[in-house]
């Protein structure tokens, strides 16, 4: 399936890499669990070195804006 036509806006390599089960509720649930673990880790990691500094700027989704250098 070569992308010869202009309608193929998605980069070919993304589809080649994998078929992402976007609609699979189990896959999404598993992903959400993993992401929750990752977010927990990142929040704790940020709070650690600076140790009890100001609380972070967080968005509605819990994204941390003022990330320091990792």
């Amino acid at each position, binding site marked *: 399936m070569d992308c010869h036509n202009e309608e193929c806006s998605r980069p070919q390599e*993304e589809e080649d890499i994998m078929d992402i089960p976007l609609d699979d509720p189990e896959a999404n*649930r598993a992903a959400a*669990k*993993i992401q929750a*673990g*990752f977010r927990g880790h990142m929040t*704790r990691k940020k709070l650690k070195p600076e140790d009890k500094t100001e609380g972070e700027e967080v*968005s509605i989704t*819990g994204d941390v804006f003022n990330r320091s250098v990792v």
Partner: protein
Amino acid sequence: MAPKKDAKAPAKKAEPAPAPAPAAAAAPEPAPAPAAPAIDLSAIKVEFSADQIEDYREAFGLFDRVGDNKVAFNQIADIMRALGQNPTNKEVTKLLGNPSADDMASKRVEFEGFLPMLQAIINSPNKAGFEDYVEGLRVFDKEGNGTVMGAELRIVLSTLGEKMTEAEIDALMTGQEDENGCVNYEAFVKHIMSV
């Protein structure tokens, strides 16, 4: 985009997981409930020791940037994470009574209101352990050699579940990919769980 094949192949990941934590993901539901009904926080029995409560109060206080002994709804998830929990954003939203986006930014909760929420998360039967994370990532281990492509992982993290931003993903993946762009996911999970 038209899927080349059925998106059923990765489903096997949920079944063979004899994880220590109850494998809630193994239950094949037709679709996840959209916005779960709000929880009755007053029914939750808070079972923390005095020492724990003091620790939690201290963490809570760090997030209070207004000085009213409260924190905003949109800080709750991070306070819980700071205290060692890994709630999904959906779990927190549910605990907060499914607030609007405006509410998330403007409404505040005091420490006593926060405690039952924290208790609920701590009591949650869905908590993932090492095996859960490894099993989840193993799905993408095409060659069965203990690694996943960093690029694949990035795509999954940004398109599935509770999508992560590029900045979040970069922060997460820093130093995790080898020279071939591959991630040893067991080591990765150990690293994640070490903090």
